[in-house]
């Protein structure tokens, strides 16, 4: 599939606008999980790394690619896991001590 530089720029511009718009709506409560989530998403670099490590065009590119696969996978796994771990903690009012629900506004 042919890649065109100008196409790439169009994609970049549109994705940036979507990104700015979507991120602006993210709740401030969740800025830390947002960052770990985007961490995991930007580990999309794994795609480039896999291609290098799998095409095996030279020893150098294979080894560097493999290291990059390792670094990105670490980010993917730890990024998604910790994001989920943090998000699980965000609760509205917990049901257990609902003795105080009388005064809850």
């Amino acid at each position, binding site marked *: 599939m042919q*890649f065109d*530089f100008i196409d790439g720029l169009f*994609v*970049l511009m549109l994705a*940036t606008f979507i*990104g700015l718009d*979507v*991120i602006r709506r*993210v*709740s*401030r*409560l*969740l*800025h*830390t*999980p947002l*960052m770990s*989530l*985007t*961490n995991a*998403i*930007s580990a*999309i*670099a*794994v*795609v*480039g*790394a*896999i*291609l*290098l*490590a*799998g095409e095996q065009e*030279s020893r*150098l590119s*294979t080894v*560097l*690619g*493999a*290291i990059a*696969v*390792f670094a*990105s*996978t670490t*980010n*993917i*796994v*730890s990024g*998604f896991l*910790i994001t989920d771990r*943090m*998000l699980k*903690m*965000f*609760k*509205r009012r917990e049901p257990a001590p609902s*003795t*105080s629900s009388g*005064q809850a*506004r």
Partner: protein
Amino acid sequence: MIDQLIQLVYLVATALFIFSLKWMSDPATARRGVFAGVGGMALAIIGTLMHPLLIGYSWIVVPLVLGALAGVPLSWVPLTAVPQRTALSHAFGGLAAGLVGTAKYFLWAEHHELTTFRMGAIALEVILGYLTCTGSLVAAGKLQEVIPTRPIMYRGQNVINFILLAAAVVIAVLLMLDPGRTVLFPALIVLALAFGVLLVLPIGGADMPTVISLLNSYAGLAAVAMGFVMENKLLITAGALDGASGLILSIVMCKAMNRSFTNVLFGAFGQVKVASGQVEQRTAKSATAEDAAQLLENASSVVIIPGYGMAVSQAQHRVHDLYEQLAKRGVDVKFAIHPVAGRMPGHMNVLLAEAEIPYDRLVEMDDINPEMPRTDVALVIGANDVVNPAARLDKNSPIYGMPIIDADKAKVVLAIKRSMNPGFAGIENELYFADNTLMLFGDAKGVIGEVVKNLSGQSGIH
């Protein structure tokens, strides 16, 4: 045929990433966002593995498994260490981008396939990747306090940084004009690595939220550059989403400190103002945990303002006990969150969520300030500059103009602090000397524990 299929898989992955971020707009849907992200990433990897040019899988699968194994324990860090972990993962992201760019350069140089455009994209990817890598490592070191958190300064710092960056740009241009000059390429890498270190060294702990956000953005931009190198639209979109996120967070952080990017990056906050006049000895009123307990339980509204000090002393669970005790008595307890409280965006929210404080009790600065004059007690826990009224009143103060939480407007202020030493920025805080302020000296965890003990001790009689 297979190419088209791969591109379609990438297309779905992109959509999932957008949904992933979209669902983060509300804590109720946020976990769905993680699943969408995982789905997008799984599709991206599967799609890539279908690529017909791949000739062997051992160099892929082994690091994939090892990376996953290393990633699991990294997700178990205590929540107070999340800023360090985040910085570390930016470093990994930058490294991956840098390495891929390096490998591509040497492959194409060998086959004489380097066009000016490809060289430009590689130079951008490599500079951004490696500077993000070392810059984030320094940031992680500072957050972990392996490296001093104070700004590290020397003469001509900005000049040296500028020269480094200029040299990197010149080399990049030279390479674009003649990509065959392979000797220059390692120099580009070294310059980018050095620039990353020198860029972050002079930045102090309190500015870390901005720096982390900025590095987050760079990591995304490095992925975008990689997209142009690898001619891959999925990389471009996912990188752009990350870059946009980092950019917005940086802007939010800068606004919350009333400072510009350049000022954060080159200003070395909190270094210069040592001799700021009035060193007159004043005394602050102090109170005991018992007094505090009494004030709190007789209040009808309490606003708790947490800062980095709460994270340092791991006091969030005691704060939860306090919240429970007061809520049981019908006291309206809210938490006022300043955007730059802590060491990364949203740091306080996560800590309080960990301590099982319902998130509808966490209120943003702009929403709480109108309520402050009607608040009976403002309890400041390990926060300093974000409640310093000098930001509103004293035109000569270095933090003048920074938006703050108006703790001083509450009827009574209780401030928990280890000692009267000025905070990170080295700025005196008028709040501690105000007539309506009582100081509670000691470690936040210990002090709040005492207050809770006093409250629960009486709960039987109450």
